Structures are given as C-alpha cells and as structure tokens.
C-alpha cells in the first residue's frame, strides 16, 4: 500500500493576469505534518483553497489516496476527507455553536425533513467535551464567543469527522499561546491517527518544530520539498526568497538612551470589561511594546490611544496638551493605528489598493480647490505600495483579491504614506512573510531613529524582545510588569509576568 496521501499534479490557477499557481507538483505522505511555506502571494493558500473546494483550479489534478478529487465546495471536500481551518473567521453569526459545527452536514440529524436540534446539541457538546473545550456550549449563539473561542469551534468543525487531510492555513497567528498549544495538540493527534496535516505558517521556528516535511513555493512555482530534520531556518529563508537573507533581523543596539521627551501620556485609562487603570508614557523615538495573553486587554491599548474605544475613561494627552478622545482628532495630530482585525477594522475590502492607501491622506493630496487628481492619487499609492513590496497587478486591484500578507502591507503602506509621528501597531507582522517582516522591522527602526514613536502590540514575544525599547506586559486588563530593553531578556521573563 502506498504511503502517499495526496499527489498534487501540475496544478495551475490564475486570477486575471496573475499566475497564482504554475504547474505545481509534489506529494504529501500519510501520517505527517506537511508544512507549506513561501512569501506572501507565493500561492500557498490558493493551492490549499483549491484542494478544499473554496477555489477551483484551472488545470492539474489532486489525487487523494490515488483517487482524483475536485470538490466544488467545502462540504464536498469534507465528504472526500479534506477539511480546512482558514486564516480569518470561519464561523457564522446568527447560528448556534452546534449549527456552525454541523453546517452543511445536518442530514445526520434530519428525519422526514425535521431537524433534531436536541440531538445536534447533544452531539456537539460531546465533541466539545472530548476536545476539552467544555467552556463552549453547543446551544449558545456563536456571536456570544470571542475570536479565539470561535477558532476552537472551527478546530472541532474541521476535525471531528477524522478527515484524511486537515489544512491549517495561517491560523496560529490569530491565536494566543494557549490557543496555539491546543492547536498543536490536535495536529499531533491527527498525525497519530495516521492522517495528514497541511500546515501553512510564516513562523519558521514553529514550522521546523511542528512539521515533518516542508514544501516551499515561490511566486506560484514549486521550489522544493525538504525534511524538517535536515534543514535550518536560514536554509528555509534561502529557499523562500531565492537568495541568502542576510543581515540583522531585529535591532542589534542595546543600551541606547531613549529621549526623555514624552509625546503621549496615558493616565488612568479604563475601558469597561477590557482594560483597567492603565498608565504609561510614550517617549519620542521610542518603540514601546505591549505583550500578554490574547485576552489580557493589550489589543485594546491601541484603540484606546487612538480614541477608538467605546466608553473609555481616563486621559490620553499629547505633548501639546491635546486630548485624544476621538479618531479624527488622533489622525489630525499625526497618530496612526493598525488593527489586529485587518479585514474588518483596517481595510475597505471592496475598494482598490489605491483608495485604501490614500484614504487618510486625501486632505494632503487634494489641491487648493479641494479637488483630487487621479494621477496624483495613483502615484502616491504606487509609491507606498511598492515601498512595502506589495504583490499586485496594479493599485487599481481590489484589496479583497490580495493574499492575507499583502493586505497587511496595504494597511502599513497607508500609514507610512501619511507620515504619522505616532504609530499604534497592533500585530503589525501578523501573516507577513519573512522578507517583508525584515523590511518592516528595518522600517520601524528607521522611524524610531527619525524621532517617530511606536507602540507595538504583539503576541510574538521574540519580536517584542527584538524590537522594543521597553515592554509592558498586560494581565487581566491591567499592567503587570515592565521590562527595559536588554540582551538578557528572554521569552521566559515575559511569560512569567503574562500568566
């Protein structure tokens, strides 16, 4: 009996003039965690989405256990033994937890056209208990749960029927440490059962630790498949980028004096149910990091400082005495904010890259008669999209057609174009590939040196340690500790204050 679970044979897919996949061929074995890596726009998600029935490939074949599969949608893919956990939210509001788990598979609970809701809830509760997610209740509306818990529901939904292949597409970046550990546990369980995980991640240490085999794609072309035990991080970077990725990844300076000039003062800030009595100062030319567990309240810090929190109490004051209580005041005073929830809070999905990049800068881009020049907007958008190495056909392309990482680049290009003095960056490198990550870190360092101040909120402890002058750790909505930049700080020093 063959050990090959999936044969990918000359699979191609185009979007307009973009060749997302070009004759990609490789094999995936049974009972392994097979990582799929590559830069943003390299075709990883396009390939797995085609396998899972979300997209339809133009050419080529997928052979699952020797049999051709070409699912028209996710349910057909499930029936073939393929499931997927997507990067963004994959559950539906307005339905219960149980209805979400069994969506498209209700037939097992339907008799004479009538759905047995009690049986469905019972079965869902059994599954949730089996996975150790007892805190989630099957009859509850999914809307009552946060992003993290909804991802746990997705894990159950994608794996409860023991599929032959489970695709996990860049899901870990959306999860806190506990969520990741839970996902890793499930990945190992799937492998132990003799099934296969296709694991997409930009986190190379995570890829090396978790996977058995790694396939690299670049610009929609298959590059190589290697054993995880036979390669290191630098080797992977070289395969992904096509050249040696040399030079420092994070900042290398230590002991540099941060300016004493305070550009933003946060006093007694409370957002009911999220953060309590938060006090700190941001200095000129400083990168101030915020870390903690996903639900620690750290993600609210950016919103609170940007005037975007609801029912916020306390004061956020700039050096000139301006109080930041709303978003227009924040933007008018050169403050930029990027949200963790990129698709819902940062991007206008059905608008062009040009419109998204130019949006906060329209005032500066208009002439004395308040008229906008199409040419000027386009060249402005092109300049900053290119600066961020955004993979696109043109700036007229809709943002919704971009890969996750490229969407993030558009968000950052917008604020770099705006030339803001204070940047509030929530998870700025989420879903970003290694090369652009390096570019962003370099850019942040340049901004810092030019006197701009940055608040960096991140669940990536290594990037906080590598980039920040100071790290504030949040726990249960409150500040639970502060660490100054030092070569001696390691992840454990941060984790000790997080949990």
């Amino acid at each position, binding site marked *: 009996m063959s050990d090959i679970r999936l044969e990918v044979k000359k699979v191609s897919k185009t979007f307009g003039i973009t060749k997302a996949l070009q004759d990609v061929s490789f094999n995936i074995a049974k009972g392994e965690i097979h990582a799929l890596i590559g830069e943003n726009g390299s075709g990883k998600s396009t390939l797995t989405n085609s396998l899972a*029935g*979300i997209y339809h490939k133009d050419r080529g074949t997928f052979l699952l256990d020797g049999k051709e599969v070409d699912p*028209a*949608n*996710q*349910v*057909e893919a499930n029936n073939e033994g393929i499931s997927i956990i997507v990067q963004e939210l*994959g559950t*539906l*509001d*307005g*339905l219960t937890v149980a*209805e979400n788990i069994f*969506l*498209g598979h*209700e037939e097992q609970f*339907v008799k004479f*056209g*009538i*759905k*047995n*809701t009690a049986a469905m809830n019972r079965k869902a509760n059994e599954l949730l208990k089996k996975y150790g997610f007892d*805190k*989630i*209740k099957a*009859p*509850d*509306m999914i809307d*009552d*749960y*946060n992003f993290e*818990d909804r991802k746990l529901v997705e894990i159950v939904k994608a794996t409860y029927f023991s599929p032959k292949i489970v695709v996990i597409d860049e899901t870990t970046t959306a999860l806190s440490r506990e969520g990741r550990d839970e996902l890793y546990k499930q990945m190992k369980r799937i492998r132990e059962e003799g099934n296969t995980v296709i694991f997409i991640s930009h986190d190379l240490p995570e890829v090396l630790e978790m996977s058995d085999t790694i396939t690299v794609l670049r610009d929609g072309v298959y590059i190589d498949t290697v054993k995880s035990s036979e390669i290191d991080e630098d080797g992977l970077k070289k395969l992904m980028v096509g050249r040696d990725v040399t030079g420092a990844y994070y900042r290398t300076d230590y002991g540099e004096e941060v300016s004493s000039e305070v550009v933003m003062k946060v006093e007694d800030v409370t957002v009911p*149910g*999220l953060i309590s009595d938060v006090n700190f100062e941001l200095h000129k030319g400083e990168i101030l990091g915020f870390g903690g567990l996903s*639900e620690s*309240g750290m993600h609210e810090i950016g919103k609170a400082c940007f005037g975007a929190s*609801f*029912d916020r109490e306390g004061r956020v004051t700039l050096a000139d005495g301006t109080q930041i209580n709303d978003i227009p005041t924040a933007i008018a005073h050169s403050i930029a904010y990027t949200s963790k929830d990129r698709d819902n809070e940062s991007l206008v999905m059905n608008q062009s890259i040009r419109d998204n990049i130019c949006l906060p800068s329209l005032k500066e881009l208009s002439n004395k008669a308040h008229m906008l020049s199409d040419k000027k907007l386009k060249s402005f958008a092109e300049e900053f999209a290119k600066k961020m190495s955004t993979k696109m056909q043109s700036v007229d392309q809709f943002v919704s057609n971009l890969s996750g990482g490229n969407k993030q680049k558009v968000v950052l290009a917008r604020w770099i174009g705006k030339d803001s003095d204070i940047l509030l960056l929530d998870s700025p490198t989420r879903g970003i590939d290694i090369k652009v990550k390096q570019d962003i870190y370099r850019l942040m360092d340049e901004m810092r040196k030019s006197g701009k101040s940055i608040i960096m909120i991140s669940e990536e402890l290594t990037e906080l340690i590598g980039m920040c002058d100071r790290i504030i750790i949040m726990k*249960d*909505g409150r500040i639970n500790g502060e660490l100054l930049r030092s070569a001696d700080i390691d992840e454990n020093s941060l984790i000790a204050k997080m949990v």
Partner: protein
Amino acid sequence: MNKAENTGKRLSGGVKGYLLLLIMVLISWGIFKIITPDNFGSPKNMLSYFEASLLAAVGAVGFYFVMVMGMFDFSIGANIMLSAIVGCVFANRFGLGYFGLVIGAILTGAIVGLLNGAFYVKLRIPSMIVTTGLALIYESVANFIAGGVEQTLPSDLRAFGQMPGNLILAVIAFAVAYLLLNYTRIGTYTYAIGSNEFVAKNMGIKVNKYKVLAFIISGAFLGVMAVLTISYGSSMVAVTGMASMSRNFVPTMGCFFGLAFKKYGMPIPAIIIGEFVINIIFFGFIALGAPTAVQDVITGLALLIIVMLTTKVAKGEIVK
C-alpha cells in the same frame, strides 16, 4: 475577559424579550386608555385588535425569511392583492369554495414569490428594484383577472374573517413558520446566508436555491394573509399604479420587530406581538378620531422609537 456566557444567558434573553414586548403592549394600551377610556381598550376591544393583527402577522412571519437573508420585497401589497383576487375567483367564479380560496391564494402567493426569487437570482439585480418592477406587473395582472371590478367573497365563505377560523389558520401558519425556522435546514441556511453568503456557499449551501425558496415561503405566507384579508374585509379592489404599496407597511414593520428580537431567540412571537402593538396604536388613533395624516405621522414615529429602543445596536456595530 471572555465574553462567553452559559446557556442561562439565552434563557434570560428570551424572558427579557417577552417582558419588553409585554411592556410595549401595556404602554401602548395604557396611553390610549387614559386619553380615551370609554371607547378604547376593553377586553372585547383588545380581542378584536388582536384578531386584526393576525392578518399582517401571518404575512410578516413569511417575509421574515426574506429579510433575514438581507433581501427586501416591495411587491408584498401587490402579492396580497393578486392572491386574494385569484382565491376569490377560484372560490366564487369556479365554485371551488374554501378549497379554491385557500389553495388559490396560497399557490398564487408562492408563484409570485417564485417569480420574485427567480428574477432576482437570474438578473442579479437588487431585490428592491426587482420586486418594485414586478409589483407593477402583479397589479396589472390582478386588475386584468378582476376585470376592473371589485371582487367580493360571498358571506358563506368568510369563516376565516372571524373567530375561530382566522385564529386557527393563523396559528397553523405560525406553527409552520416556527417549524421551518427552528427544525429544518431551511432555517439554519436562512441565518447562515444572512450572516455571510460567501462562507455559506463554501459550506455547500446552494445559496441561490435557498434565496428563491425564501421568496416562495414568503409568498405562500402572504397568500395566507390574502385569505385572511379578503375574509376579514369581504372584498378586494385591484388597484394599479403602485397603490398596493400601502399594504407593504404593516407586515414590514412586524418583520422589523422579528429582526429586532432575533437576538432574544424569539423572532416569531415578536412579530405576532409586534403586530398587535401596531394595531393597538392604530385603533387608539381611530378611537381618538385623529385625522389620518396625524395618525400616520405619530404611528410612524412611534414605530421608529419602538424599533430603536428594542434593537439597541451594540457599540461599534455597523448599521446600514
């Protein structure tokens, strides 16, 4: 700081929903009872207001399937008119009696729904525009069938216009809607499509099929409403020039109640009680002898306030 709660939250949500509706009934009744105590709000009066509210409530529970999916229907009034006229013709002219009245009206309503859904799905034009255009056609068809003459239902065929016939038919309709919404795939898919059509499609749900089905269900319920309407009022005039649009208002408002109380897990009871509140206000104005224009202004404002207070959109939630 997990926002997740246990199942108790849902139960209390339902109780809260019923309490809110009860308060609305009491307030609307109380205001008019204080202003005009003699000719408004006796138990007998209240029963007749409730009977009148059943008409629109039946149409509204069907229309809810369309609205939850994020679509709209401007041909509600034309559908009711056409279905009532066809039902009346079947019962009267073809001598099919109650069978002809009920089946004729429901079938016509469902066919109108099918046409609405099919045109909307095939032409890929916003549902508001499609149904507005089709409403003009339905009005003309009704006028043609009626021969420009008012269609009257004989007195021996009006059992659905009074107790207990109207109540029995309405309760059957509510039970069917409840069953469809809570105990069939149609209900689950209706909410799924309303929540995120793209994800629903990826889950193998035939989105267009269920959209058309929602229009058919809505149409069939409007057919039942047509039976109740012509039985209650005894006749129907086939108006043209979009005059049938005036019949859209009450079922649509009831549907808004359903949408507002969806979060409490009780859209159908909310529609039924909501229509009752609308009728209490309506009959209150009649008891006051207020001019129609004043009635319309105050009714419109009162309903906007009710929906605003009960909907209570979460902070940051986008309303379109």
